[in-house]
């Protein structure tokens, strides 16, 4: 049975997911300009959100700023890997 904290985190995640999934997808897609990559990255971003939600501190940043930072880092990593894997 889920304890109170786990339940609260799950509900918080569902709320964040519902509020941000389209925004995050659009952000990722319009940076990568590739649909498949955008879908994969969006999934990875929300997995990271879920894994780090317990450490999110609303006094330090809004949810929007927090999740944007996660998304931005994920896309930057993807772009960097793509750049270094491109044969010159």
């Amino acid at each position, binding site marked *: 049975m889920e304890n109170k904290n786990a339940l609260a985190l799950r509900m918080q995640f569902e709320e964040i997911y519902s509020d941000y999934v389209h*925004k*995050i997808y*659009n*952000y990722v897609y*319009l*940076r990568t*300009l*590739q*649909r*498949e990559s955008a879908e994969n990255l969006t999934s990875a971003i929300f997995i990271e959100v879920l894994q780090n939600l317990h450490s999110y501190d609303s006094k330090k*940043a*809004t949810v*929007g*700023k927090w*999740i*944007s*930072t996660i*998304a*931005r880092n994920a*896309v*930057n990593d993807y*772009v960097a890997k793509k750049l270094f894997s491109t044969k010159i």
Partner: protein
Amino acid sequence: MKDEISEPYEKLYKILIKLADDERDFLELRYSLELKNQEIADILGMNVESVDNRYLQLLEKCRNIVEGNVKKISVEREQIILNRNAESFKNYLADKKIEVFEIEELEDEQKTTIFRSQIIVAGQQLPTLVILDKSVFALIRVQIASQVLSDENRFALLDFINEENFNYKPFKFYFNQSGTLFLDLCMPVEGNVSGDMIYLMFNVIINYLEGGYKKIMKKIWQ
């Protein structure tokens, strides 16, 4: 798989594909993620005024793309890129009221800007440069000792420098053609140079030289 683009997004796609990744990043933080200017400034390590200015520059660029004014765009892009790293560090120095650098802007292809100063180690003033250009790297260069490599000490010094390079990963030593010993620290910069990061790297260099400088000079004069 070829990406399919729905009709309303086709025009947007045609604009965005002509922007650099960091430019798309900036616009999408605002439009897709609906962040406020202060939040964008925090994430990108800029001040709000710079965010406003960059936003206006990018809107103008998008307008030019729509109008097909490609030449103007490339000039504008060149100006944005060339100014960003150096301008960012200049702003940092101004904000912190740091006045120890002489600034020289070169007219080369990379639009290099050199910030000249010196660090003092063991009572010696070592000429120090911060070199910023259009590339994604910032370079800190310290002149350790001038024209010290000779036929007599060449083998011993190169061996010693190779060992130092092996032991200290953040920076590298080398001799130029006239036998002057330099220390170079190269760091990637993402979009805008972080002045704090450059100063942190200065501390790394100074901490090393506090102990290492005498060791190097001893080896040179042996």
